[in-house]
Structure formats: C-alpha cells, structure tokens
C-alpha cells in the first residue's frame, strides 16, 4: 500500500471528523450535538482500524474492539437523560 493512498484515505477520514465537529459547534439543540458525537465515535473506530493496518501490528486492533463495544453507553445515557431525566 503506497504512501499516497494512505495519505488520501486518512485525510478523507479527517475531513469526515471535521464535518462532525462543525455540526457539533453549530447544532441548535442538544440532540444534534449528541448525533454528531455518536457519528464521530463510529468514524473514529474505522480510523483506528485503518491506522492499525498502517502501523502494522495486530495489538492495535484491541483498541478498536473496546471502542466498538463501549462507546454507545454514552449515547444511551444522553438519550435516557433527554427522554425523561435519569
């Protein structure tokens, strides 16, 4: 995998995180910001798997596993709070 392809792929993922952050800064309600943060979590998981391939060691995939399992707890807690207050 050449250097240019890695640069383009990670740059596009960085732009995706930038767009999520812009929505988090602009969003009128708190639900918009929660949606932006949750989308940023999923994009981050994909970025970490890809960068683990670039770094070339299998140990790095464990971080993505923890991300995929645990980050939805925050979104569910925010949803419970918005629904009726915890």
């Amino acid at each position, binding site marked *: 995998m050449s250097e240019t392809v890695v640069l383009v792929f990670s740059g596009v993922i960085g732009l995706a995180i*930038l767009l999520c952050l812009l929505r988090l800064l602009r969003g009128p309600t708190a639900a918009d910001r929660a949606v932006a943060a949750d989308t940023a979590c999923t994009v981050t998981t994909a970025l970490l798997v890809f960068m683990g391939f670039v770094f070339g060691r299998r140990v790095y995939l464990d971080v993505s596993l923890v991300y995929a399992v645990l980050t939805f*707890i925050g979104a569910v807690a925010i949803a419970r709070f918005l629904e009726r207050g915890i």
Partner: protein
Amino acid sequence: MIILVSLLVLLMLCAAIAALVFRDLLAAVIASCVVSLLASILFYFLHAPDVAMAEASIGAALVTAIFVIALGRTRRYEE
C-alpha cells in the same frame, strides 16, 4: 501523518473551547466527551494503545454517564 495530527489537535482545541463557551451544560458535557475521544486518537498515534483503550472506555463512556447522572440530579442550564 503530520497533517492529520495537526488537524486532530486543532479539532481537539476547538472542542475544548466549545466546552468553555456553551451555556447548556449537556452540550458542554458532549463537547468534553469529544475532547476525550480526540485525545484517545492522539494517544493511539503516540504508540500507546493501552492508554488509548483506558481513555476511550473511561473518557467516552463512563465520564459522560457520570456527568449525565449528576445533571439529572441538579439543573441543566447555567444561569
């Protein structure tokens, strides 16, 4: 690589400033969750996967849940 790291650092500082200026405390909590998320990516790029794992599980999930529980016990808007 240097471009991606600079972009992530810039985004992390923007999210921290957003956590400073939001009047809605729930929005500030979400912004601090994003700060922790981006810091976890930077830990990963600094070749510290165990620290990134702890920061992701604690910063993005547990701290947000604790803050949201405390916000449910108190009031939501900063006066």
